[in-house]
């Protein structure tokens, strides 16, 4: 038998294919990152166009977590929507509850009548939420860049916040703590002392994170000069929160338009200088320290004291807005009517429209409420900071390396539950 050997490889071929290969070299690779990728912190999908390892075009795709919250809101009373706000930025549910309650109270025109104790407790809630959100944001940011220890440290502290939340509200995550015109319940006994203890402990952890990262060569190399957002771009894209302040724009709603008792409290607004990932990290780190200071001030100055021995009110004294005490409902006709009306029809809001923006951990969480009177909003629009912050990605990512995407996404610190609503 004779074998005819067929050569698989034409040695002349590669040279012959040079023209073809030259075309290929200029070809751009399209890479899908997400929707299920550890660094997309949820379900963000990025369509990246790469030339080598450099990103030439980035198209974010959002909406994988769209639940139609705004549609749902149009079909229920103002109070019934409070649990839905837990699920916006689910890393800081307390802050969402407060922002939403304040928006509705602004519509009702009772935002100036909130009892001081309620306002102080709400500030405590907001700042606890801020610390919790930044701890997670920094922990994940660092872990995505390879610093595992930071994640373990910050999550240990977050667990304490969750315990405090559970003690205060009955739930770790779905807190639903605020009510229109007040709070669901007062601070439990001994809670303030535990919160104070937490302040001591978290301050130590923040210092530890600072020591682990701020002058860490690898961390500095991964984040400094990466993902630079100029102040002009930050304003043009309406970024908010640490992402805006990381670029050196001094805008913090707690200072610019103080709500609750922020004008009575002392705190600094940290600002970045270059607007890179490193600056955003520094801003968040310092914000946590400021939040610890705010927590301490609130606990010191809490009207009625931590145990509320003087029975300072936590709700607006208006039975048409806040549910009357159960004891009175069972004995008094008027309170019974109020209770019935509130439960069946909700608070009677006047026709009109308001926008209220609160400085949430991720940025400006705003609620636009359009009312035609009655207990249901005609339109409720959520201005979610993550949605707006992510819109800068097509501008920010091109030109950086693929591996920097992870650092940039970590430093933007977004939550898809809030982005997609």
């Amino acid at each position, binding site marked *: 038998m004779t074998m005819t050997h067929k050569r698989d490889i034409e040695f002349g071929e590669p040279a012959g294919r040079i023209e073809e290969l030259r075309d290929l070299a200029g070809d751009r690779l399209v890479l899908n990152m997400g929707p299920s990728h550890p660094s997309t912190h949820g379900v963000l999908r990025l369509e990246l166009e790469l030339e080598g390892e450099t990103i030439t075009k980035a198209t974010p795709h*959002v909406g994988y977590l769209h639940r*139609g919250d*705004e549609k749902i809101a149009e079909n229920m009373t103002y109070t019934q929507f409070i649990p839905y706000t837990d699920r916006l930025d689910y890393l800081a549910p307390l802050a969402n509850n407060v922002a939403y309650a304040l928006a509705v109270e602004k519509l009702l025109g009772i935002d100036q009548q909130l009892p001081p104790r309620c306002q102080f407790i709400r500030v405590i809630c907001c700042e606890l939420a801020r610390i919790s959100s930044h701890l997670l944001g920094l922990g994940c940011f660092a872990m995505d860049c390879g610093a595992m220890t930071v994640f373990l440290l910050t999550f240990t502290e977050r667990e304490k916040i969750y315990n405090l939340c559970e003690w205060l509200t009955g739930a770790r995550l779905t807190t639903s703590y605020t009510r229109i015109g007040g709070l669901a319940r007062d601070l439990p006994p001994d809670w303030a002392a535990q919160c104070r203890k937490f302040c001591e402990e978290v301050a130590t952890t923040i210092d530890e994170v600072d020591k682990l990262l701020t002058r860490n060569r690898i961390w500095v190399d991964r984040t400094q000069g990466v993902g630079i957002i100029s102040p002009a771009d930050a304003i043009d894209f309406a970024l908010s929160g640490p992402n805006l302040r990381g670029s050196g724009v001094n805008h913090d709603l707690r200072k610019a338009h103080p709500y609750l008792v922020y004008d009575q409290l002392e705190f600094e607004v940290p600002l970045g200088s270059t607007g890179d990932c490193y600056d955003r990290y520094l801003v968040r780190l310092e914000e946590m320290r400021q939040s610890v200071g705010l927590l301490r001030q609130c606990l010191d100055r809490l009207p009625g004291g931590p145990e509320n021995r003087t029975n300072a009110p936590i709700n607006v004294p208006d039975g048409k807005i806040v549910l009357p005490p159960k004891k009175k409902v069972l004995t008094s006709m008027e309170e019974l009517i109020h209770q019935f009306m509130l439960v069946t029809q909700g608070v009677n809001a006047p026709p009109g429209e308001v926008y209220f*923006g609160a400085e949430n951990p991720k940025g400006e969480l*705003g609620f636009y409420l359009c009312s035609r009177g009655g207990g249901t909003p005609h339109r409720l*629009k959520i*201005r979610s900071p993550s949605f707006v912050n992510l819109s800068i990605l097509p501008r920010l990512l091109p030109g950086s390396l693929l591996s920097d995407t992870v650092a940039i996404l970590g430093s933007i610190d977004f939550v898809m539950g809030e982005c997609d609503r």
Partner: protein
Amino acid sequence: MNSTELAAKLRDRLGDLVSEPRSFRGETTVEVTDPEKIAVVCAVAKNELACDYLVDISGVDNYGEDPRWLIVYELYGLAHRCHLRLHVRVREEISALPSVAAVWRAADWHEREIFDMLGITFRGHPDLRRILMWDGYPHYPLRKDFPLAGLPTELPGVAFSEAAPMEGGPFVTTPGVKDAAGREPRARPIE
């Protein structure tokens, strides 16, 4: 400067294009009478009145009224710290207005969202696609005539259409079979 003065300045500059300002709960709203001029009004607000920060754009469906659509722009100036709200009403037959994405780039995604949720088109928008719903979704869910329960639609093809690993198969009980031998998973031969 406060927001009432800001609104007055806008009216001085543009005349009847903007209405008398209205105040409610400390916020000022002016109505832009001609939706075709919204981009012009926004450019003036940004360049001459330093409203450099576009907080939000929302769309409201006033179903059963004419004009049906109300578009709400929340403007803010970081320098003067004043908030101003612009209203534009668009008729249902038109359902389109000029885009302001060239004035503030923040408007890009907000306008896409309104297009997605209400079906209003923005002329001159750089990339008007659905943003929260998927491409090819046939409805506009935030319209008042769209039911809360939703409408059945064709879902885009999913990657896995075969039975999931624990769906059926040798370990799962079959309900509705009369005798235990039929229900019992181990009685069935392995496929």
